[in-house]
């Protein structure tokens, strides 16, 4: 009886737009020649390609603290693919990593040939690098190195890029306090 009901419910769900139609993304095909850049997002999810010494918004995270949102931009021909990403922020004076996150990220090819997360993006579309509060560095307004690394599914190919950037609080005094106040 339960099984019959489950099948009926599944059929009804599919009739209205079967959730199984959400396709798994192909792994991104990367090798040592893959061109890699960095995109960041602001609190509204708008993406920007990061330039050397560019500003990176510090965003109040849902569970507290401040994060920066970073993801790869990859030159490739695949329409949509997924890659395991490690994003980190490093103190330039000590070389110590202030915050690091590793997660799977799906990228979509844009008209310019670069693949990025969707724009605008959701928080989960980019690495959430937790940087404030920090036990080791002041963060807001202090240049630091933002590094993004991508790895192919079997771990045989790794591509890394890094840019110096300036994490920025904008108008939030609480952000400044949380990111710099304890140091």
């Amino acid at each position, binding site marked *: 009886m339960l099984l019959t009901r489950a099948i009926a419910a599944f059929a009804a769900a599919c009739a209205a737009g079967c*959730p199984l139609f*959400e396709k798994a993304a192909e792994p991104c095909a990367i090798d040592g020649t893959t061109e890699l850049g960095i995109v960041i997002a602001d609190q509204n999810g708008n993406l920007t390609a990061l330039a050397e010494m560019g500003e990176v918004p510090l965003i109040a995270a849902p569970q507290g603290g401040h994060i920066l949102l970073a993801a790869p931009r990859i030159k490739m021909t695949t329409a949509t693919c997924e890659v395991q990403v490690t994003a980190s922020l490093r103190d330039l004076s000590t070389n110590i990593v202030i915050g690091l996150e590793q997660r799977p990220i799906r990228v979509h090819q844009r008209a310019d040939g670069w693949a990025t997360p969707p724009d605008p993006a959701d928080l989960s579309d980019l690495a959430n690098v937790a940087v404030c509060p920090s036990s080791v560095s002041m963060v807001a307004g202090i240049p630091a190195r933002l590094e993004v690394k991508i790895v192919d599914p079997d771990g045989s190919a790794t591509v890394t890029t890094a840019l110096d950037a300036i994490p920025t609080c904008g108008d939030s005094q609480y952000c400044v306090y949380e990111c710099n106040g304890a140091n």
Partner: protein
Amino acid sequence: MRWLLACLMFSACGDNVDPAEYEPWVLDELTPAQGISIRTPEFEVPAGTEIQDCYFFPVPDVADGADVMIDRVALALNTGSHHMNVFRVKTIRNLVPAAGVAIDLGGVQGTVIYGTDANTECWKSANWSDWPLVSNSQQSAAAQHIVDWRLPDDVAMRLVPGEMLMLQIHYVNASEQVTPFVGRGGVNFYRSVDGDTQELGTLFATQQSIRVCRSTPRPSYSGACTMPAGSHTVAAANGHFHSRGRRFRIFSWDGVSTDRPGDAAMFYDSTDWSEPDMKTDLEIELPDPGGVWWTCDYQWVEPAGGCAAVDARDPQGANDCCYTFGPLVETSEHCNVFLYYYPKVTESVTCF
């Protein structure tokens, strides 16, 4: 599987148990000279629900106004608990101790803010984001109701009389976890009497905005947390995720590398989402500089009640049956680290 089918068919897991089988846990009742005992009342956990209650109490003055050093903690839970965490109350946002209902916590007077509805403040982690961890347990199975942790020699945690603490307790009586009888938790803080000189510190870390989706069924999330400068020894740790969690690993980390440390650096490895061990007596000296790295591996599974509930929580509205970050066992996922180290160097190390 038979147990799961039985739960689905009767839609009231825990209703078909013999009350005579209820064997409540027993902790010592401590005198002030011995320490501090906290007890929640027993409470019902109706079938198909998750409950999270936040109990607040000031640390009793058991030492004529002096700080109390604690070198043994015993935490007890009836079967069905998902977690019990004790935090020090700091910045008060929307979870206000004074707004709670007065309650007796085994002789200690406090307040409680009930969380029978997941939209209430006791469920919203931003409310305690800067509240340092004191202690925690996730063990409530019949064979291990009590986590009894004797801190390392010469190490103790400090409690300050009058300081407000929150004991948060989460019970589940649904498809993923079952509360066969009633919910109840208790904590004993045993006073140190041997002059411990090193203070225990705590670290709480979490990965936010995680997703475990039908189209990305085996995601892995990692984070890393750098400790303040100095020498630190990990004394105990436990990881926390929900039923899609397959493996939780914690490593010591050099604070510089962006590659996951090798297995030789791993000091915590759990595949048990519902009753993860509190690993004690670890004695792991972290590199200086350095800290910890953690990895949560997941496997997506079809929700017992179908995808509607998880889809409704998805901020992306992707209709991909994604479990997203959140406290509800049935419909969301976590990747949290609870870690205890010494000597303490700052009020709390938070990484999220």
